């Protein structure tokens, strides 16, 4: 009986956890609740993915009302994969959060921090799991509002500004999304994604549908920080508390990417989006602009968290590149990179959080010679950095390999050169940090530092280990992504 209720529990447990955590108001108890909840999540999502792999997509009618009248949860390979990713990251970061929250969040508010964290987790899982366009909006807002708060809790006063800017842009994005859904609803009379897809074929090419596609794309792109719409991201990631940055960088944009894939491939259909409309070249151009533009900006950053944030924008470019390629290998690469980038960037931000914890700064000049005092952390940074660059033997290589295959499949060999070129730029910015920490004499701040407590070190090392592991054993990542991509592309063949 429990097994059939898993889809609802996936979202409801974090919600209940958040409410209880808010009631207790003790930081330690709230942390315990968050720990219990976030460690249950991977079990549920793992069970769900396993079930999907063995017996096909799962559907669940909330309230017992059948779709399209009620809200439906629907889990297939793609969102099963995303659920596993989000819940895993959520589980890894919670143990880490304890020490860093104690230091960064004012006393007496720790419980509410965990409440926000759980709500954000709940919102992200809710977006990923639902099969209802409007329900996705509601949970998008749950995750967004909690994200704004998490960012605003950063110690620097500029965190407030970053949160405000994100609030404005995020709300514009969400409102665009609502307009898009409204237009679709007016044309089809339904909100269930599969139902919309079925009924759209009758009215395809009608102007409101085209406009709906445009509004949805712009709205979701704001959330996923696609290149010209990424302005909120660097500040937000740079000033948010460390645990929040790592969590958001690894999950929030990824879930938005998932939503975009869902709308492009499942709702509007591959043929309509990629054959009839010039979506592919536009996304290709924007992805390339992100890969190069943001990477180059990253090279000139002195705040390492900011540098990594710009690098995130660039890496999101790789994922959208996979979407733009819209063929088997390209899309596989995009989906795999969703996962690989999440664990890699999560690891990097966790390491930087540890550095901030010990030294109080993540400015490049303050980090000089830090590797002598924190060799394990900085070693972890090097390994995860290699994965960002895409060195063979790391997870980053796998996704770039598939992206390159996808580009070749289309005959666009020049894209392969650009992929390599963008990786070269990432060597420069990762290299700057490595050079400063390993090869320079220790500065004033660095000489007083030491390794972070084990509760912070181990989560970072787990993620680093994962980036190496998934660089060799790709059965989970590529295996699932390949099947998911094949399912998404079904319409095209």
């Amino acid at each position: 009986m429990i097994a059939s209720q898993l889809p609802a529990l996936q979202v409801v447990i974090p919600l209940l956890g958040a409410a209880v955590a808010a009631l207790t108001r003790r930081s330690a108890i709230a942390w315990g609740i968050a720990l219990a909840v976030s460690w249950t999540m991977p079990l549920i999502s793992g069970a769900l993915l396993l079930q999907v792999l063995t017996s096909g997509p799962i559907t669940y009618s909330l309230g017992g009302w059948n779709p399209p009248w009620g809200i439906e949860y629907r889990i297939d390979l793609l969102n099963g994969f995303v659920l596993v990713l989000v819940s895993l990251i959520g589980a890894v970061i919670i143990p880490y959060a304890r020490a860093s929250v104690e230091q960064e969040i004012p006393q007496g508010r720790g419980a509410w921090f965990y409440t926000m964290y759980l709500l954000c987790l709940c919102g992200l899982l809710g977006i990923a799991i639902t099969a209802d366009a409007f329900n996705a909006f509601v949970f998008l807002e749950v995750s967004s509002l909690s994200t704004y708060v998490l960012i605003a809790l950063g110690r620097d006063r500029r965190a407030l500004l970053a949160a405000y800017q994100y609030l404005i842009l995020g709300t514009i994005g969400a409102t665009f999304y609502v307009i898009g859904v409204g237009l679709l609803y007016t044309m089809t009379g339904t909100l269930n994604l599969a139902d919309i897809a079925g009924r759209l074929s009758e009215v395809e090419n009608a102007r409101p549908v085209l406009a709906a596609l445009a509004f949805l794309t712009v709205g979701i792109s704001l959330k996923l920080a696609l290149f010209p719409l990424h302005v909120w991201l660097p500040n937000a990631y740079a000033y948010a508390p460390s645990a929040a940055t790592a969590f958001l960088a690894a999950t929030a944009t990824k879930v938005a990417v998932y939503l975009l894939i869902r709308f492009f491939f499942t709702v509007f259909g591959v043929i309509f989006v990629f054959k009839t409309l010039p979506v592919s070249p536009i996304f290709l151009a924007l992805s390339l602009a992100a890969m190069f533009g943001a990477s180059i900006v990253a090279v000139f950053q002195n705040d390492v968290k900011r540098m990594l944030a710009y690098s995130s924008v660039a890496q999101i470019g790789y994922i959208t590149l996979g979407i733009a390629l819209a063929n088997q290998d390209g899309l596989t690469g995009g989906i795999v990179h969703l996962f690989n980038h999440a664990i890699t960037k999560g690891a990097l931000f966790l390491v930087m959080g540890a550095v901030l914890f010990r030294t109080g700064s993540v400015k490049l000049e303050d980090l000089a010679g830090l590797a002598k005092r924190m060799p394990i952390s900085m070693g972890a940074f090097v390994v995860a950095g290699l994965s960002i660059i895409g060195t063979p033997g790391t997870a980053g290589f796998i996704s770039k390999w598939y992206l390159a295959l996808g580009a070749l499949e289309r005959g666009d060999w020049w894209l392969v050169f650009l992929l390599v070129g963008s990786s070269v730029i990432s060597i420069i910015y990762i290299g700057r940090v490595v050079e400063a920490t390993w090869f320079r004499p220790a500065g004033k701040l660095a000489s007083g530092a030491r390794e972070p407590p084990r509760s912070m070190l181990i989560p970072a090392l787990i993620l680093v280990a994962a980036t190496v592991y998934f660089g060799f054993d790709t059965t989970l990542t590529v295996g699932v992504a390949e099947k998911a991509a094949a399912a998404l592309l079904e319409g095209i063949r």
Partner: protein
Amino acid sequence: MVLLTLMAIITIGVVRVRSLFAVVILGGIYSFLMASVMIVLDAVDVAMTEASVGAGISTVLMLGALYLTKTEEAAPTHTPFVPLFVAAGTAAALIYATVDLPSFGLADNPIHTHVAPRYLDYSVEETGVPNVVTSVLASYRGFDTLGEATVIFTAGIGVLLLLKGRRRIKPGPKRRRIRR
């Protein structure tokens, strides 16, 4: 139509006026007009909510925030080209879309024929609630409403996290007593 025209005039007012108090009050009037429009369009529940939230709570919160900040807006310093471009682009897309939307108010539009009739036909039988808005809100799409309550919960705790606490510039004696 008259109401909408009034709303348009108010919007222009909001753009032009620089006193933030006036802007907030205009916003309240706007919400009341919106509520009236909603009644005309048969959305009584929405009208009630918009009146109480848009004209009531929002205005109170805005005024409260203004009390804590400033009441005059600085003169705009940028040239308004980029915003105008953004606005024009959005307007173009919207007008492009609305021209082909199903005609206003016809009963055989897809929106009225597909999902909605079932709610109207079976609400009383299945849920015992004659106000279909309530039954859809709380039962058929009850999970959305749970999400809505969660959004409120998030905002509530978020505001408390941001505003309640010790990091104040001038800790007044009044507040001390209240905490704990």
